[in-house]
């Protein structure tokens, strides 16, 4: 029998785009992740995941409590944690007439987790719910756990949405080799292998170097003048591409929005305005 790796996936201030993106994985795909042994001999047992689970209401909440009765599960957090109004902006569910806030559930669940995966930019860095004026006090999972003084290994997998390969790749790596060494993550908690600088790998870099710039969205050429955030954004989109390798924003004549960065969206917008003068970029390559 395969070794069962229990996992719990909770959703806070999210649009569910992260889980939809994970459904888009090609190899591994969602059946490899859920139905089969993602790594031979090891099966991820997803005990709680509101978007796909059969159980609803108390049946679902009982499954969550059963899964978290023992420590050592993998906790996947999608969405930012809203600490405004004592956590009342987001509820996970009701048990015995008591409604549990998402913030209180993350705090409870993280204490007994083997590791926490912050999936998507909202969970990793706050994302759109934390955008100015941050009406609900949305914060990243990392900041929330630090504030609660909960020490648990944390891996950020940002992206709005995150690429499915980044998620399944991290899970598979944990199953094969255990939690990542500290030097496998960059200084903001991302696995380095999935987050190289876009500008270094962009197929339109030769246009940038030659000064051939698109003047408006929809034009060919380097998209720097129409707002591309590739020079300051770390992600493997130009190499991995999206949806089975079909396309990615720059190939579609659309500027990179910088969605894997802590500054998304405020520091990356207006999206269609250039980030800074070339001289200010201080490019080191």
């Amino acid at each position, binding site marked *: 029998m395969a070794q069962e790796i229990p996992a719990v996936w909770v959703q806070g201030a999210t649009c569910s785009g992260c889980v939809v993106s994970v459904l888009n994985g090609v190899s591994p795909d969602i059946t490899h992740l859920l139905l089969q042994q993602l790594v031979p001999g090891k099966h991820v047992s997803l005990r709680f995941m509101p978007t796909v689970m059969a159980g609803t209401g108390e049946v679902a909440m009982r499954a969550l409590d059963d899964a978290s009765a023992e420590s050592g599960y993998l906790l996947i957090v999608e969405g930012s944690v809203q600490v405004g109004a004592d956590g009342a902006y987001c509820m996970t569910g009701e048990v015995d007439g008591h*409604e549990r806030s998402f913030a209180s559930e993350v705090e409870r669940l993280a204490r007994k987790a083997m590791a926490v995966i912050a999936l998507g930019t909202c969970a990793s860095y706050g994302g759109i719910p934390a955008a100015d004026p941050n009406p609900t006090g949305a914060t990243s999972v990392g900041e929330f756990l630090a504030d609660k003084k909960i020490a648990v290994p944390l891996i950020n997998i940002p992206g709005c949405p995150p690429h499915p390969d980044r998620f399944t790749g991290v899970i598979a790596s944990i199953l094969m080799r255990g939690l990542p060494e500290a030097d496998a993550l960059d200084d903001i908690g991302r696995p380095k292998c999935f987050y190289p600088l876009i500008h270094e790998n962009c197929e339109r870099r030769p246009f940038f170097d030659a000064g051939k710039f698109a003047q408006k969205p929809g034009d060919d050429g380097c998209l720097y003048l129409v707002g591309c955030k590739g020079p300051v954004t770390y992600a493997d989109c130009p190499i991995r591409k999206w949806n089975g390798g079909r396309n990615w924003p720059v190939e579609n004549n659309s500027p990179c929005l910088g969605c894997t960065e802590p500054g998304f969206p405020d520091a990356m917008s207006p999206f269609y305005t250039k980030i800074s003068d070339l001289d200010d970029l201080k490019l080191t390559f």
Partner: protein
Amino acid sequence: MTKIVLDPVSRIEGHLRIEVTVDDGVVKDARTAGTLFRGFEIILQGRDPRDASRMTQRVCGVCPIAHATASTLAVDDAYGVADAIPDNGRIIRNLILGSNYLQSHILHFYHLAAPDYVDVAAAAGYSGPDAGLTKVAGFIAGGELAPFLPRYEGDYRLTKEQNLAAVSHYVTALEMRRKAHEMLTIFGGRMPHEVAIMVGGVTCTPTDDKIAAFLGYLSDLRTFITDCYLPDVLMVAKAYSDYAEIGAGVSRLLTYGVFDQKPKTGPLGAQRFFTPGLIDTDLNKGAVDPAKITEAVKNSWFDDACAGSPVTSSTKPSPAKDGAYSWLKAPRYDGHPTEVGPLARVLSAYIDGKPEIKALVDATLSELGATPAALFSVLGRIAARAIEAKVIADAMVDWALALKPGEPCIVESAVPDEARGAGLSDAARGAVGHWLTVKDKKIANYQLVVPTTWNLGPRDDNDVPGPAEQALLGTKVKDLDNPFELGRIVRSFDPCLACSVHVVTPKGDEIARHIVT
């Protein structure tokens, strides 16, 4: 009297709580409430109007294209280019939105709704040639049955053979919905959260290789819809025929229409593939007047001043308000609660006499021995989704073939100092409207009225319940420990909660008390 609380309602998008009171086995009171608030309408203020189509997609990761579409129609309107979108741009927008419809409908039926009707456990011990069933059987043999168990038990009615077919298709449907997103990405750049649709048209360009790739995916999807999706819906409908008699709700339907077939010239398009309409149970169809759309807030945690037309309304919380129980406003058309969604579009086209819709609806009703009145039900909503999936997928072939490589896809535009714009369209799950005010070249006000607010919103100023609440009222619940009926009714609306909650500024800790009571 028994109170049943379903919190969370799983297998939907977002955070939903439903609370019903059952007396003598019948639902006597029903309340639906969203339980997540983020604050998009506040966050959008002061931003570049073009950024709204990127930002509002993050309202919902299941139907982002509907928001990109409505937002961009509003910005097109405000920038004065709504009637100037090049044909390539208009068609590619339709192809991107159409792809998202197909993904959304397949996901809804197989992965969100079907677990209420199909018993996955039937695959236990399977040893035949079907690859999907072999995967499921191996999974069951492993003994860890999450996330498919636990669940409600006691009302799975399909035969073993029927269950096996449906479970096999559940696995195939995972691949099909993924392919629909890959198809979308050919022109959208990425999914979820595409990057092509923007004021004036689209950023991408059509080429013959892209059109061919698109048609390849579309061919696989059309085959699946015809050979699996439609027959499976009929199979479920026959085994659960009583669900054609429950869950009707308000039986008053609204669609803004969708898929512009000509450059848009008015708020509801010059000519849409599905036409706008207001439809009743006698299949009368009336014109849609956007000026009749209002939102009530008596039972919502908003200041009374937030009621009225979305053209000018605002979003101010009133968390201590007596009697309020929802963060959703209560949209009303001409003062009445109104249901939106695929059933509205399909009946609008049926009344128009659109041949491909009429043929499929009549064939479905004939197969089930039902009249059009039966469509106002749980099964009617599910069937309408499958029917329009086939009709849209077929039409997308013609749309793709109408693309002209080398011709323009976008027109130039400039931000006005001051303007207003409205973008009315239909998401997979129903009518969606974005209203925008521009001042000093920036967003001064932004309001969304979205499908799940229409369908899952609370009581209005006259305490008339919303459409989903009315659909629950009067329902017989056979087994209070396994209230299948409630989930089936609510899921037939394909709720999308992240879309529907109007978000507010925090006013302090009092909010917590009022949400949990």
